[in-house]
């Protein structure tokens, strides 16, 4: 469904991605793990069009999308939940969700009901300004907002960042749920253990290259991964 091949991206003189190849098939959860500065978020931002690649190809459903504007890419069916959530703090929860449906408001009511069933707390707080929600609730709102575009693929950038453990497991359960309903997910995570348990397949990035890849299960038992990322 999504294929990155030989992708290079840089921030000025700093090369953040040095030719990575990643594939996401329909209905999968694919996870990118790696330490700080490995290029995980850069990869996501290059897919979503916020960053322009220097070289390489991004193919989504047979269409080349590298270098297209972010709004065009959302239109094609790739929604991103940005790192740090970036909800609209002064708009109400409902208004945040409405904006999620900006490019695609077909079946608005049904999508809204679906998101309220995934995250009942958002319904309770639908009139409250987004900025007054707790961190976990804001993350739910950010995911719900991305789902309002009815994307074919969801890009999640560190959804567990700064959340209490109970919230992390709730968010991960929801990601699984979204996947069970047929959603394709590309997940970037620092919380490698939880992410690998969840993922069908995973890629380990290290300083801008793919170091390892395999099924989540395999990597969870891989000696190197256990040492470097699982702290064993």
């Amino acid at each position, binding site marked *: 469904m999504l294929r990155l091949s030989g992708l290079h991206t840089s921030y000025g003189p700093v090369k953040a991605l040095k030719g990575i190849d990643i594939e996401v098939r329909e209905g999968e959860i694919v996870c990118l793990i790696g330490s700080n500065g490995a290029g995980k978020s850069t990869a996501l931002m290059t897919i*979503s069009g*916020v960053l322009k690649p220097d070289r390489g190809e991004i193919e989504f459903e047979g269409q080349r999308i590298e270098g297209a504007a972010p*709004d065009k890419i959302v239109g094609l069916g790739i929604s991103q*939940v940005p790192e740090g959530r970036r909800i609209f703090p002064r*708009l109400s929860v409902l208004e945040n969700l409405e904006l999620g449906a900006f490019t695609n408001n077909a079946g608005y009511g049904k999508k809204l009901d679906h998101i309220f069933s995934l995250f009942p707390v958002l319904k309770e707080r639908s009139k409250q300004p987004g900025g007054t929600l707790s961190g976990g609730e804001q993350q739910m709102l950010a995911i719900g907002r991305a789902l309002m575009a009815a994307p074919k693929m969801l890009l999640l950038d560190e959804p567990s960042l700064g959340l209490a453990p109970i919230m992390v497991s709730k968010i991960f359960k929801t990601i699984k749920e979204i996947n069970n309903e047929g959603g394709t997910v590309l997940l970037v995570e620092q919380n490698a253990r939880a992410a690998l348990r969840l993922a069908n397949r995973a890629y380990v990035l290290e300083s801008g290259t793919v170091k390892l890849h395999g099924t989540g299960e395999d990597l969870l038992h891989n000696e190197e991964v256990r040492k470097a990322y699982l702290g064993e």
Partner: protein
Amino acid sequence: MKRFLHSPVAVALCAALLFLPLKDLKSAALLFVFILAGLYAAPRIRRIKIPPLPFKLPRTEGPLQILAVAVFALLPLAVKDYYMDVLIMFGIYAILALGLNVIVGFTGQLNLGFAAFYAIGAYTYALLNTRLGLGFWPSLPIAACFASLSGLVLGVPALRLKGDYLAIVTLGFGEIVRIVLNNWDAFTKGPNGIAGIAPPSMAGISLGKLQHYYYLVFLMLIAAVFVIRRVESSKTGRAWLAIKENEIAASTMGIDTTAYKLYAFAFGTFWAGIAGTLFAGKMQFVSPESFTFMESVLILSMVILGGIGNVYGAILGAFILVIMPELLRDAQLYRMLVLGICLVALMIFRPQGLIGAKDASAGR
């Protein structure tokens, strides 16, 4: 010594001495007392809790709108020409503030050169009328579209910038327009200005009379409110709001942020063009003096005072800042001083403006 220099007395004394060459001893002494009182009061004042508005605004706007329209429609029957004149200027400034509110209030893009587009509107009508003999009505859309187009021309390069940088570029543009008008003698008659602009007429009747002109401005203001409110609650308005709140998040929602910021520039400056034409038609004379940087600041103050992002706030701001100087005519020299104090007080007590769009304190 060092302690004395940092004391409020020293600060007030310095300010008063600096002021002395500009005015007489009495006003310098007055200033000294005011600044001293202000400096002593400021830390204490902040602790005072200001209650929310003492009355509740009705949920539906209908009755208020009808009341406001009725009052303003009946005013010419009751008031003297002098007030008519002031009210016409209020209407023109209200349209300007509404236009700037689209850019600053809805979309969150600072613009410190709005008077340039007001000038472009006014000069377009002045030149079309005096050189080509074109009347008010055909000139109105041309002037508005021309102002709008210049908004786009400025927007394309300027909107790559954000915040302070955007403010400086727009400020520079405002000055460029004024200086060009001032120096291009052959075309704009420079600082002498263009006189003898025909007032508009309708069905053969001239609208030059103050009462008639009042109704014309008033109808334009209603049209502006109506159109801007419609756009605000449309998809475009939502996109502007998202850009104001968080530009990166807005682009991940699939909003083409560059295009929507340009729409805001073009749409806001369109109303500046309308206001400029109305101004030229009323004064029957334009000169670069009317479109200085202070004018841009004044329009921005109206938007901020009334409440950023609120259509009625912009109108209220225009009303206060047009009427207030008329009431303070005797204290003309202190006008800007009073205005500054009012704005500082506003930032402390009601940062969202008198009737702000959303409570700014709700989370960040």
